[in-house]
């Protein structure tokens, strides 16, 4: 298996909250099977932000949704608090849901247009009652905390801007005192200055309420800003896992390096093979390392054998036969 392996899992750490091992998600479509996620492993430590970055279609959303079993992965395990979520029945799974919340990309579409804002935020309490610090009497305080004026509680979502809608989504997720919030491109639809507000808000909420975040984005600057640890994905596989600053200072996977060189403003040159190479089909992924069709450093072994994830020093892991550990790319802006 290429790009697989579990070397980067922190099994010794008692604070590991979610442990995903060898997760596979496949979709059957008329023209074959889409290999959306192929053997991805990662873990999340309490209070940490894990950033997932990669090109469109590489399986970021599918990975995150499979963690909360929406839909359930084809194979692999997702351990949360010692229970394997993939083994739970629907009703047991529903009982775990409050701990694993999610924020979506489209701020408008993620709020029911026919319900009031306080209704939307209070929905979790209606179902589960108070689970932690938030009760229906303290909704105002929660709205205050995410920057929504509580006086607007009786309004409908369409009366709010995109940024405000995203704040409402954040409040809805927080009301159940979750352990993990999955944020699937929560700022991609927002204007630049609003994006900063939401990023700051998520950072504050994480600090204040000790929640872990899984933050998905295709924007490397955003990922770097918000993440403690970053996982780079390519075609349903993990390429590289490292601390945010470390990854940006010393990208070792050739795909990560290509991403870094593509950051607007970066002066680095992207290798021609990246430019000419089209993203291969997820129905028929390349054998060996899935990046070999576009990789400037690909050799025969890359086409036949899949690399496994290995440490390249410190808390930095790469799945590559020829990792570029010597020559750091300078990221300028």
């Amino acid at each position, binding site marked *: 298996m290429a790009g697989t392996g579990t070397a980067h899992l922190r099994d010794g750490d008692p604070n590991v909250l979610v442990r995903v091992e060898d997760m596979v998600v496949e979709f059957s479509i008329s023209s074959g099977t889409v290999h959306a996620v192929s053997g991805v492993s990662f873990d999340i430590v309490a209070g940490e932000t894990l950033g997932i970055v990669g090109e469109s279609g590489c399986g970021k959303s599918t990975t995150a949704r499979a963690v909360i079993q929406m839909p359930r992965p084809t194979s692999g395990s997702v351990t949360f608090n010692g229970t394997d979520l993939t083994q739970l029945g629907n009703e047991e799974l529903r009982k775990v849901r409050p701990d694993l919340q999610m924020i979506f990309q489209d701020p408008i579409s993620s709020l029911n247009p*026919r319900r009031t804002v306080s209704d939307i935020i209070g929905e979790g309490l209606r*179902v589960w009652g108070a689970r932690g610090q938030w009760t229906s009497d303290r909704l105002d305080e929660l709205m205050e905390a995410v920057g929504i004026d509580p006086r607007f509680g009786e309004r409908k979502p369409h009366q709010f801007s995109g940024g405000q809608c995203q704040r409402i989504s954040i409040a809805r997720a927080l009301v159940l005192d979750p352990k993990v919030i999955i944020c699937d491109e929560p700022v991609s639809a927002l204007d630049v200055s609003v994006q900063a507000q939401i990023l700051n808000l998520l950072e504050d909420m994480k600090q204040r309420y000790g929640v872990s975040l899984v933050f998905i984005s295709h924007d490397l600057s955003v990922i770097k800003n918000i993440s403690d640890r970053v996982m780079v994905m390519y075609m349903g596989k993990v390429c590289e896992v490292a601390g945010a600053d470390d990854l940006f200072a010393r990208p070792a996977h050739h795909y990560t390096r290509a991403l870094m060189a593509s950051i607007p403003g970066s002066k680095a040159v992207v290798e021609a093979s990246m430019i000419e190479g089209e993203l291969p089909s997820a129905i028929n992924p390349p054998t060996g390392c899935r990046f070999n069709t576009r990789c400037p450093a690909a050799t025969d072994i890359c086409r036949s054998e899949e690399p496994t994830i290995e440490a390249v020093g410190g808390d930095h892991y790469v799945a590559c036969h020829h990792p570029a550990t010597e020559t750091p790319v300078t990221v300028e802006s």
Partner: protein
Amino acid sequence: MSNVADNLAYTSKAGPPDTVDSKREWNLIFWLSVGWLVILVVFILLGSANPLVPEIERNADLINAQPALTNFWKDSCDPEVERCGRDAFVVGGLFGNDDRGRDVLAITVDGGRISAFIALVVTAIGIFVGGALGLLAGYLKGWIDVVVQIIINVTLSVPALLLVIFIVVVRGRSIWNVILAVSLLAIPALARIVRASTLQVADREFVKAAEVLGVKKGSILFREVLPNVMPTMISFAFLTTGIILVAEGGLAFLGLSVESPSITWGRIISDGRADFRDSPWVVLTPSMILFFTVLSLNLVGDHLLKRYDVRGSGL
């Protein structure tokens, strides 16, 4: 709050807002249609208690039809027959009378009662049964969807007319059999529309968000999905009512609508055909009323669809 408009300006990247004029125009047509429907309902409910509508001469013998309003049709009458010259307002009422001397307005109102009854009951059955099927299929998907889709496709692929003829012929021409027959057509059609609309809503992220919160499926269906499908259902209810009014007319033409002495719009029109040359008003009056009613139902349905379709209205 001026914020509201201004918020919208920055959230929706949609194009320019509608111009005022096109909206006003719409509203006028909409309210005219609503007005027509209200008048119709009042007439039907009041029935013979309405001083504007003459009593129906139930036992009237077959007599020559009376022209409406003017003596425009006088020439076609036989001058030998005395009755022909009678003032339309005296005997014939506003819309003249038919070959049995019954006032056309009166029978139209009377027929409207049964036509409307059939249309409304069928629509209600269609919305409840078809709507429920569509909602379940569209939201739960899986095997329920497969079964519902099969039901929809099978019923819609059986020639509708044959099905109706079969039911009415086998079971007799009572109102309830007509309702049953037409309902069998309305249910799959509405189920299909509601299913499509549900699929669209169920795909939206707020439904996913409710699932993530651990809300039970039934609750999601009623609290998140249904309120967003409802406007579509209501607007299609209006459209369906119109279609069924017409369908009942079709049945009447085939002699398959309710039995005498009950009358419906379809029956009046189909019975009046025989004397169309001499007394066209007998056919034209209920036809025009049917036409305006169906048109109004369509316009109201369309307008509601546009107004409350959350995507379309740019909310």
